[in-house]
């Protein structure tokens, strides 16, 4: 089951997602990147039905880019979150997207922020959030260890604690995770946490 979680620290926001692409009992691949870089200072960590996930996040990414081209300035994180919610809400009663999203961003004026957007378009600004079966472990761990203004090292230690807990306590635990960070210097990949590596394919 897909696990996505994230938290806000001192001047940054971090999101982590598992990296298995699963179809019923088969694991297609274990290095699927579910955290999309929306623009220079935004990350979208999405979980849910894989087709909807890719289609919807790419749609949001292209529309956010279009806004920047048309208006010359990028959207704020709050605006991007509200746009995403609006698209999910409009589609909800016609052709719903089964995608849960954690949108992390950094704005110069307001600093880092994290938005919880559920598949039925419930939007809420949070300090820590999680989706999936992993959330039952992560949210409690984060409630215990999180405090506002954490440093990157403290936040990564907490993320690692959550990953360890998911690996040891979830019956169909995803083995690999990707961690991405967004701060004043932009959105970028921070690390992978792999316990199962794909074997290298020999060249023809």
């Amino acid at each position, binding site marked *: 089951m897909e696990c996505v979680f994230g938290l806000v620290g001192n001047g940054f926001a971090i999101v982590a997602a598992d990296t298995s692409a699963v179809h019923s009992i088969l694991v297609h691949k274990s290095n699927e990147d579910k955290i999309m870089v929306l623009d220079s200072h935004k990350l979208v960590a999405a979980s849910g039905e894989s087709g909807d996930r890719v289609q919807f996040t790419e749609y949001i990414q292209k529309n956010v880019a279009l806004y920047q081209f048309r208006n010359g300035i990028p959207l704020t994180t709050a605006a991007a979150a509200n746009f995403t*919610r609006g698209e999910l*809400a409009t589609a*909800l*009663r016609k052709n719903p997207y089964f995608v849960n999203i954690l949108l992390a961003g950094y704005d110069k004026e307001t600093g880092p922020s994290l938005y*919880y957007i*559920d598949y*039925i*378009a*419930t*939007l*809420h600004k*949070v300090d820590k*959030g999680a989706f999936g079966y992993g*959330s*039952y472990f992560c*949210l409690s761990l984060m409630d215990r260890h999180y405090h506002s203004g954490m440093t990157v090292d403290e936040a990564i230690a907490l993320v690692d604690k959550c990953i360890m807990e998911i690996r040891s306590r979830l019956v169909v635990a995803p083995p690999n995770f990707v961690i991405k960070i967004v701060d004043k210097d932009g959105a970028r990949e921070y690390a992978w946490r792999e316990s199962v590596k794909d074997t290298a394919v020999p060249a023809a």
Partner: protein
Amino acid sequence: MSIFEYNGSALVAMVGKNCFAIASDRRLGVQLQTIATDFQRISKIHDRLFLGLSGLATDAQTLYQKLVFRHKLYQLREERDMKPETFASLVSALLYEKRFGPFFCQPVIAGLGDDDKPFICTMDSIGAKELAKDFVVAGTASESLYGACESMFKENMEPEELFETVSQALLSSVDRDCLSGWGGHVYVVTPTEVKERILKGRMD
């Protein structure tokens, strides 16, 4: 589980002497899981009119955006704020438009009329208005709220006493409901000022 109980909510509005109070709980949940403890259910439409929306959070957010849009248009055309009775009729009409595919919300409307006379009303998810002279309730804790308000309510309470009454009624009712709680948010509105207070209750 009913769709109205998906997120969990508790709302109450009470009439005092030339004033009213509107209060809500602060929990945002997804069935058994608590996502946030600072969710805003009550919004200001204008200085003398407040709207609380219980039920499904995504529909509450969509409905709030539609109502603010309609009220802003009204303000532009009429060059004045909407009366509470008029606003209640607007909400009722908007809800009935979706009679066969409704918004899963129960609104609570509270405002001060032209002569500073307090007005409260609630309606069901398809817009059946329920005007009351004393108090109105909505949400998953509504049955407990009916009992608590009926026993604690007195006519013509001053703002301070009204605040105490509404707070006690809210906190004691949400303590019997697992889907609502995690504190309270109370607005006491008189012709001259709006007092917003956060209550700390049982944080479970």
